[in-house]
């Protein structure tokens, strides 16, 4: 099976005169068998990118290749892709069986073969006993399984997903995630998965492509995106609760760079910060890496506001001189509105350019 090569993809919508650049010069290669997730906030151009790959939209410029076949100008019917939509798009007037067999029927498979293939797929997806039902009688999760099955039976060369689970609730999502992984693994074709849910992106992908305002911000494996975000945007977008940001300033003290946040000073071990002396920076800290001390003087003083116990952890909200800060505390933590201080390791500090948001350290 081929890989997907997206080169300089740009898509401009012309909405009654004013141009909207939905996708801006995107370059992305998805290897055969690779699972790449396109993640980003609403309206950033994820769907548009995917629809260009699918052939449902025509790129304004750029090329799309499947292997060495240039499909930029090929109609969707000739691309042999599978595509799963957010609004599940099962045909409401066909039974599950018919829905799944439709693509095969179009392609001209015989009745027996259609049935055989559908049953095989149904088994894999554990929906064998739903085959006779109509889509309206299924739950959201089951519907999405059927949609998956519909794509599956056709042995597509490319698998595309557009937020297939955004209408499902958390439990169902967690249940369906392994199923999707299993299916794409089985077919072994390149997969482009669009979502705005960073958790989905993190858990499922080989690589995550974070997109912001039509441009790719970072493309890397999940752990790298989480641990080494290359911009403030990525850091904030990936990880739950979000990275907390503060305004700071880099100073050069005795040749080493020192970070000043309000009255606090931090020594930064990292190299390459010399050039930033005197510059304003944004300081990022993941809530997971902040500790809470009972001694209000041990670090930054913080007044406890609210706890959100999750069972295996608690999200605690504190009021500090830098505004509201979220900290991930342990399950038994009960702040009770008292005074604490927040402590963190200097290693865990991320620094970003205050204006461009680019990672400094």
């Amino acid at each position, binding site marked *: 099976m081929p890989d997907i090569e997206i080169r300089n993809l740009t898509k401009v919508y012309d909405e009654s005169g004013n141009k909207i650049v939905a996708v801006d010069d995107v370059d992305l290669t998805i290897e055969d068998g690779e699972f790449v997730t396109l993640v980003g906030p609403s309206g950033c151009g994820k769907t548009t990118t995917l629809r260009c790959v699918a*052939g449902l939209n*025509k790129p304004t410029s750029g090329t799309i290749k499947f292997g060495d076949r240039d499909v930029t*100008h*090929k*109609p*969707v*019917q*000739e691309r*042999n892709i599978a595509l799963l939509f957010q609004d599940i798009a099962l045909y409401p007037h066909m039974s599950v069986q018919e829905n799944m067999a439709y693509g095969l029927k*179009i*392609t*001209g*498979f015989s009745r027996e*073969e259609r049935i055989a293939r559908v049953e095989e797929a149904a088994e894999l997806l554990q929906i064998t006993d739903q085959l006779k039902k109509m889509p309206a009688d299924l739950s959201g999760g089951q519907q999405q399984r059927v949609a998956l099955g519909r794509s599956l039976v*056709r*042995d597509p060369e490319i698998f595309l997903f557009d937020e297939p689970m955004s209408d499902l609730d958390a439990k169902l999502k967690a249940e369906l995630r392994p199923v999707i992984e299993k299916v794409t693994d089985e077919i072994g074709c390149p997969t482009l998965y669009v979502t705005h849910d960073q958790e989905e992106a993190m858990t499922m992908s080989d690589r995550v492509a974070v997109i912001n305002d039509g441009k790719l911000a970072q493309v890397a494996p999940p752990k790298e995106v989480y641990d080494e975000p290359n911009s403030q945007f990525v850091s904030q977008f990936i990880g739950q609760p979000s990275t907390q940001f503060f305004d700071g300033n880099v100073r050069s003290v005795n040749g080493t760079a020192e970070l000043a946040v309000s009255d606090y000073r931090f020594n930064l071990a990292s190299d390459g910060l010399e050039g930033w002396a005197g510059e304003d920076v944004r300081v990022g800290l993941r809530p997971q890496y902040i500790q809470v001390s009972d001694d209000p003087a041990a670090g930054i003083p913080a007044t406890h506001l609210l706890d959100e116990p999750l069972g295996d952890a608690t999200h605690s909200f504190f009021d500090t001189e830098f505004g509201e800060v979220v900290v991930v505390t342990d399950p038994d933590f009960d702040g009770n509105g008292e005074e604490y201080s927040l402590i963190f390791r200097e290693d865990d500090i991320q620094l970003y350019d205050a204006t461009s948001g680019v990672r400094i350290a």
Partner: protein
Amino acid sequence: MASETGESIRPGRTYIPWDDLPVKRETVAGVGTILPVVVLYLLIAVLPIAFAFWASLHHIHTLNPEWQWAGLANYREVLNISTFWGSLWRGIIYMVGSTLLQLAVGLWMALVLNRITRGQKLLTAVVFTAYLIPTIIVSLVAMRVFDPAGGVFQMMGAEWFGLWGGREAPLGSRDWAMRLLILIGTWKFAVFVTIFTLAQLRAIPDRFYEAAKVCGANRWQMFRDITLPRLMGIVLVVVLLRSVFMFNKFDIIWQLTEGGPGNATTTLPVLAYKTVYTDQAYGLANAISVVMFLFLLASAIVYFKIFNPSEEVETTT
């Protein structure tokens, strides 16, 4: 895989490479889809109307194939004949009276049908049937029930309510003919309003009412603040359609009263018809029709300007 198993993937017969085509092709296809409609429309509306315009500029005796050029003489005559203004006025009364009554009755029936629980389907079907049965049958039944000989409504009107004499024919009465035409028309056509509004009512989610109830709203307030605004869009459309249809209505009037007694129910279409077949003045009749058309067109434009039924409030459901 499919190809490996030897099964060739047969593409569907004709892929029209839509996205490959220059933009023009979509235009061509789009226009292609409406072409049958355009052809039909040409046959049934554009050509005959153009013909009517042309004919209205001639003196034409209905039974004489020779036309004489008349210029605008027919139009001058139309505006000068006394029956024209009377008929226009009666036509407006008939149109406005019928439309308003149909709207009120249609809406009311929709509200009731939407609420009743038992026998809803049957009653809805019966009510809808009124719209579906041929006008001629409505006329036949109406003539029967208003017939002084054994007509039940005639009998009720005469004996129970004293509206008319025992042997009087209400459809032949100056006082009653127009009113009854409006009533009978309403019986048949109010359902048109009902169908549309009932469809809309079914589409209003309960939660809107529940949210209003939570706020303490009573039924009238719920009707005023939720039902009515939601129906407004379609009501505007339906009023437009019904007005046009009623203004042009001919068959039921002709069948029931032939424009009589006297001229009491002669509306413009009836006048045009009489002008063709009784006065044998085909050119003049066409001039009347053209004037009617212009009148409706002007009214419709004003209506669009004031109410704009094409711009509907965006809704989230």
